[in-house]
């Protein structure tokens, strides 16, 4: 990993931490889910980034699977929030 990669990682990680902060702080369930959603997107990006860093093409598939499942997850949660569980 080059220094450039490290810096990239640092910036994105701070973003991730902020998202986690929102996840824990709330105050509404929806806030937490939004935090989670942001975290998910960041994670997808990171997966692809790590694929590059470790030179493993196949990690991209992992990113895609993850992104897809997270997407469906958010929809499900949104639906349940609407119903009031």
């Amino acid at each position, binding site marked *: 990993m080059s220094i450039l990669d490290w810096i990239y990682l640092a910036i994105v990680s701070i973003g991730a931490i902020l998202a986690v902060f929102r996840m824990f702080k709330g105050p509404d369930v929806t806030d937490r889910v939004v935090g989670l959603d942001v975290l998910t997107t960041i994670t997808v990006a990171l997966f692809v980034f790590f694929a590059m860093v470790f030179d493993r093409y196949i990690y991209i598939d992992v990113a895609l699977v993850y992104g*897809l499942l997270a997407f*469906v997850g958010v929809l*499900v949660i949104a639906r349940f929030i609407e*119903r009031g569980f």
Partner: protein
Amino acid sequence: MIRKIVYSIFLATIVLALVMFFAAYPFGKNKMTVGEYYLNNGVAQTGASNIVTSVVVDYRGFDTLGEVSVLFGAAAGVAILFFVLAENRRERKNITSPNFVVKVGSRIIFPFILLFGTYIFIHGHLTPGGGFQGGSIIASGFLLLYLAYPGTRVSRKKLSAVEGLAGLTFVLLGLYGLMLPESSFLFNFLPKGQLNALLSAGILPIIYIAIGFKVAAEFAGIVDDMMCEVICRGGEK
């Protein structure tokens, strides 16, 4: 409060003991005997470039058969718990119609999800994905459909047929190995092919496809049951 403290101490004790145990087996050290064997011989013996797949489907394929069975058992259990006689089912009145964006978006993305899930389990022997991942992706597609159209239900009979057939394929492929001179369950009797080719690794992709279908059917079943519980709750005892 005392309870919390006491159990915290207990758990700390457990963690400490675990630390002590693992301190004796240093982190990040070299691989173990059997694992090393797989890395050195896996490609030659199974034809799968993804050694994890060769472990999951071939060397430890019997574990995977169990795993499939566990999932099957869970799906059946959920089906039992959420079972509602057809005549007892009643629509819930206060279901709000889903968001238009979700509705149409889900509908459009559904075919792609199916395709993508299939892609994942067909490439299971080449990439980190596999039958489980592919299957769950397909099931998530069904989940989306439920979100978009709360009234629809997947045909349970079709799901049963698919999961049954997929399971049968797995076991029968395994049993075929017993009829060969090697007389070994799950013996990889097909040609191994060229490394990294789609058609390689003998029976591994076939099994993974079967698993993919099975997992998809089972998760879809679970989703269907849960949705039915949410939407057409009924049959209370």
